[in-house]
């Protein structure tokens, strides 16, 4: 068996180090090694976006990245979205606008939406749909979810 690798990385602005086998994905490391279970496993092959995180400013599927590749990276997960107990406007909007039902896809969508608003603070409906096409939701039919993102971006613009 290959030796476990010692990896040093930054997660939600905190320096973190861990041991992992090369065959453990970043998703597995987040969930099973670091117990950051907010990032979800929906398909484990890049087709549903439930495992979305932001790595070095880029939105990615953590199931398609190895834990060892996280060396010297900056990773943002759902656990870091709320700051000091204050919900991010996206989280508030999802709550107030019923942008979720069962909640399993919600962390992935929130990270994806955050990455969008970081890049384009005032997207229109089509731009939001295009950006979020890599995230699957089976409960909401997307309507209130998209509206949540639109309302969040409006409230961030007003702030």
């Amino acid at each position: 068996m290959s030796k476990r690798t010692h990896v040093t990385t930054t997660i939600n602005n905190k320096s973190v180090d861990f041991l992992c086998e090369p065959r453990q994905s970043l998703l597995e490391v987040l969930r099973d090694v670091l117990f950051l279970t907010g990032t979800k496993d929906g398909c484990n092959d890049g087709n549903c976006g439930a495992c979305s995180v932001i790595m070095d400013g880029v939105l990615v599927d953590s199931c398609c990245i190895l834990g060892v590749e996280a060396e010297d990276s900056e990773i943002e997960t759902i656990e870091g979205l709320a700051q000091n107990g204050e919900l991010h406007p996206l989280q508030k909007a999802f709550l107030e606008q019923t942008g979720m039902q069962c909640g399993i896809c919600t962390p992935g969508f929130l990270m994806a939406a955050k990455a969008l608003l970081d890049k384009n603070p005032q997207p229109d409906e089509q731009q939001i749909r295009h950006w979020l096409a890599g995230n699957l939701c089976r409960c909401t039919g997307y309507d209130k979810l998209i509206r949540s993102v639109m309302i969040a971006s409006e409230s961030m613009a007003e702030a």
Partner: protein
Amino acid sequence: MHDFEYCAPDKLQEALGLMATHKGSAQLLAGGTDLIVFMRARSKRPDLLIDVKKIPELSELQLDKAGLTIGASVSCRAIYENDQIAGKYSALVDSTTLIGGIQIQGRASIGGNLCTAAPSADTIPTLIAYSAVANVVSDKGERQIPVEEFCVAPGQTILNDDEILVNLFIPAPAPRSGAMFLRFIPRNEMDIAVVNAAAFVELDEAGQNFISARIAIGAVAPTPLFVEEAGAAMIDKPVNEESLLNAARIARDAASPINDMRGTVEHRKQLVEVLTRRALYGAIERARGALE
């Protein structure tokens, strides 16, 4: 997943040495969006994964008068977020913005897309249409391979076990030229192409006749197909409906699709004709736009 070793050399020479010693049991890792999935599905089981993202030659992205050099590990996102490149190589933007959703595009590389060599790959017809050339090195030397010769069978490239794709070179497009890539999928994103097609056209000064054209189609043969005859038939022909229909028909005849869970033979043949015609139309519009 099976057990394997992982390394991330920052020198091309070191990677080449490892490839030579491992004789086919090593795999190169760039974006990982194909390879990691294959490994999980047990269809690829390398003993060693060589992460090439730290090797400078493979991360190069360079646009100059001669053309565009894309390092093999450069991501789709890096291509389409670069305004200069996006402006000059629209079909490349078509391709890279269609692959698998934003998350995939953030990691997936054009080099990886080429080396996975799926018949349905979304960048390969575009590379062919743009006359791209693959720069490949090994311990023993280097060679240039036109992209249309790169894939030899579904999932198989022309590369030897000890070779590494370093970059792709796309020559600067001629003035009054344009290209477009189109893909047909059943949903509006996230699907593998049922059929895809890329067209590149070069128009004369008046924009009324074709000087040259290159058409490539995908998912309808064991590899992406460069339909040389279709482009050849357009040389010196007028830019009109008939030329387009004719080229589209030639492309259709060149296709040898199969029935599978993504499409039927009849539908794919029809789509080749439709997409080729529409891609040509779009390429012409872009070429004419370049005239202004």
